[in-house]
């Protein structure tokens, strides 16, 4: 599945998007954050405060307990500051 990063999450990880294939036991958005965090320092830094991170599946906001099965695109970003 495609994963996208925005704002300082993007800056900390050092890339705007990538394709990942997490194992079957990574079932929720929260699981995915944990799995990504274990991939290296930059990820651990980006996700150091998981409660601050917002997520979207296929362009819709979701919570950490949302299931990721079937998702085409998952995005992680800080709280929004538009408007």
């Amino acid at each position: 599945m495609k994963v996208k990063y925005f704002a300082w999450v993007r800056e900390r990880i050092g890339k705007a998007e990538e394709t990942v294939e997490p194992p079957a036991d990574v079932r929720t958005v929260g699981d995915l954050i944990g799995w990504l965090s274990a991939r290296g320092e930059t990820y651990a830094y980006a996700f150091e405060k998981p409660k601050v991170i917002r997520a979207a599946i296929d362009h819709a906001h979701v919570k950490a307990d949302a299931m990721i099965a079937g998702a085409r695109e998952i995005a992680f970003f800080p709280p929004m500051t538009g408007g």
Partner: protein
Amino acid sequence: MTVAATIRIQEADFDVAQEIAGLSKDRTDIGAVVSFSGICRGSEQGEPIAALVLEHYPGMAEAEIERHADEALARWPLQGLTIIHRFGRIAPGENIVLVVTASAHRHAAFEAAEFLMDYLKTNAPFWKREESRRGTSWIEATDHDDAATARWTKP
């Protein structure tokens, strides 16, 4: 009458006057037009800034704004609705965002515009970074904005 919202997410500046005129011109069923323009200030927390740089999530930004526009059209008897949000580099004094609502009655026009601005602030996937002499830094979201959004949720 079905009302379609005009939604634009663009890098270019826009003309508030033209957008207001576009909603109400040659129509005699509109009694009230409310416009909100969000403008880039020249300072943040007392520090002068050179510009704001807005990053957005293409695709989701459109979807999210459309969802809230539809909700506003369902909740209030609107006769016209325009939402424009810019991205990219925006200098102090320039427009960032515009919401224009038209209705036969003023309270509908006011409430829908406020509702949309509160949601844009907290739910639309845009992120502001400020440029100043000291470098660039991301602007933090405020609890105040979350509280403003929460008041529109029915109990």
